[in-house]
């Protein structure tokens, strides 16, 4: 598994522990006490490092190639999941997936960006960057969910909508804009999770929800720190500074009133345990769906969503 720069001291400690264990076994020496000590130190170091990550380091975790993807989470979270394909007009976009699922007594429509874990997968998934038909597939499935009164769960994980010639030709702007408007009016609850990278309009395009949760090391930003830095500082290397200014971490997003809560990840990040991550998300979904099940007037879902976004904005009057 790919190690991030700031993980190196931890990795080194764990390597040492492995060596000691090996030694202890082979040489018959009793090194348990030393090992226990170092293990304790490693745990502390890990907690220490992960408690003071810079926003850019968090972003690195959010983009980790082994981070759990939408389809894998669907398998881990739901009792059954069946993918549904296509926008019924142009193409099935592999960068956005969706399908129907069950979770105990709940029926769910799941929609999410889909990244890959290796080069081949990433090329197929276009690195999780949707084309317009991806947003249109998402909208089709959301309308289907609305028709059959099925709550919607979305998983956000994209560097952004794809900036390509054909995407522009087919109306990337139109597709996202339409989703923003139409998601507002859905008469079913929508619960969203930023499971990795929440990249700008491409993320928001499936993120107009009643509840929004950030995974602990997920990020959500109006522009990538690299892009911001290259515009404002004329230097992409200033992305550390840009990342700080933009306020992109889970805590920032909650503090600004955009997200409703943070879903804890395993120490080190979701890529250390997909199952634990899935379990944590599952709990939140169940809690929210149980609560929403009590709502009998479906217009309340629309009103809640409208009010939530209506009050976003900070200005003086």
């Amino acid at each position, binding site marked *: 598994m790919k190690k991030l720069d700031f993980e190196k001291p931890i990795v080194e400690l764990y390597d040492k522990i492995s060596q000691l264990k090996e030694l202890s076994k082979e040489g018959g020496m009793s090194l348990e006490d030393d090992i226990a000590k170092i293990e304790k130190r490693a745990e502390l170091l890990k907690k220490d490092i992960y408690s003071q990550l810079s926003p850019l380091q968090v972003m690195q975790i959010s983009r980790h190639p082994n981070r759990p993807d939408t389809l894998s989470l669907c398998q881990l979270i739901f009792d059954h999941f069946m993918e549904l394909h296509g926008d019924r007009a142009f193409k099935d976009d592999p960068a956005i997936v969706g399908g129907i699922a069950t979770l105990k007594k709940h029926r769910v429509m799941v929609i999410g960006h889909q990244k890959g874990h290796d080069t081949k997968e990433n090329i197929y998934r276009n690195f999780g960057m949707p084309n317009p038909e991806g947003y249109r597939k998402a909208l089709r499935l959301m309308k289907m969910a609305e028709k059959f009164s099925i709550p919607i769960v979305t998983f956000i994980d994209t560097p952004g909508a794809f900036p390509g010639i054909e995407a522009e030709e087919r109306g990337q702007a139109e597709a996202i804009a339409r989703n923003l408007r139409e998601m507002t*009016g859905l008469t079913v609850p929508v619960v969203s999770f930023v499971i990795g990278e929440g990249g700008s*309009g491409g993320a928001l395009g499936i993120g107009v929800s009643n509840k929004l949760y950030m995974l602990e090391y997920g990020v959500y930003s*109006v522009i990538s720190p690299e892009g911001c830095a290259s515009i404002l500082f004329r230097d992409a290397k200033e992305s550390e500074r840009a990342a700080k200014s933009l306020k992109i971490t889970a805590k920032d997003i909650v503090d600004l009133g955009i997200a409703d809560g943070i879903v804890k990840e395993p120490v080190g990040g979701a890529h250390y345990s997909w199952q634990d991550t899935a379990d944590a998300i599952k709990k939140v979904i169940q809690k929210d769906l149980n609560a929403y099940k009590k709502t009998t007037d479906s217009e309340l879902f629309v009103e809640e969503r409208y009010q939530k976004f209506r009050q976003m904005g900070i200005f003086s009057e």
Partner: protein
Amino acid sequence: MSILDWFSQKDKSSVVTEKLNIPGNLWIKCTKCAEVLFLKDLDLNHKVCPNCQFHFRITPEERLKYIFDFDSFQEMDAHLKPIDFLKFEDTEKYVDRIKKAQAKTQKNDAVVTGTARLKKQDVNVGIMDFAFLGGSMGSVVGEKISRLIELGVENKNPVIIFTSSGGARMQEGIMSLMQMAKTSAALHKLAKVNVPYISVLCDPTTGGTSASFAMLGDVNLAEPGALVSFAGPRVIEQTIRQKLPDGFQRSEFLLSHGMVDRVVQRKDMRETLSRIVAILSPVACEL
């Protein structure tokens, strides 16, 4: 990503005109055809080059003058002001950028909203000002656009918005992104009560603005030659590593790709808009 462009573009392909070094600045050189034009003639021609039909960027005040009934505009929410709530700092503080833009444009932020009359028909009008921080959409723009649309829900008069914006205002971080959802949500309310919304795409309309209220008109019109895109040309060129074809992402390109209903010359805008309003408006119309 979406905003990457207007910033760098400003210098390169902007339509800011090159004023010739003649006392009184009475002469101006067309950005497109380089023809030297008498400033007063240009004004009389709705700031459109008589030689090549190039549409110069204009101020909200000029737009009001060219299109709506004389003196009919009543501004609202002019007092809303942006706040540097993130203490955003790049090479310059956001708070200082705001001050400069306010001094330059004599406006508090990048959009002017209010009510007006169009050939005697009451309408709700918003006009973005690219001169104010590239027409970028922060909390104030989002709020004013949303209130304008909500006014339409209330008074049932058609809403007309002229867009000109580089996208979301990154100095307001994630909050600027949310203005996309907020304005689009307002449009959902408007659509539910069947009040017409006409979007007029002016140069340039990109990023978060194009991917929200700008593209959602019942009728989308565009001024000739306007750049309208989600991703800016520079970002796309970086992605595909080759030059883009001429006319890519311009109004006429959007027309042929089904995104806008009509490309309308500035001189025809008043007539075109009033006719559309007359036909779509649920208010009884005298045709």
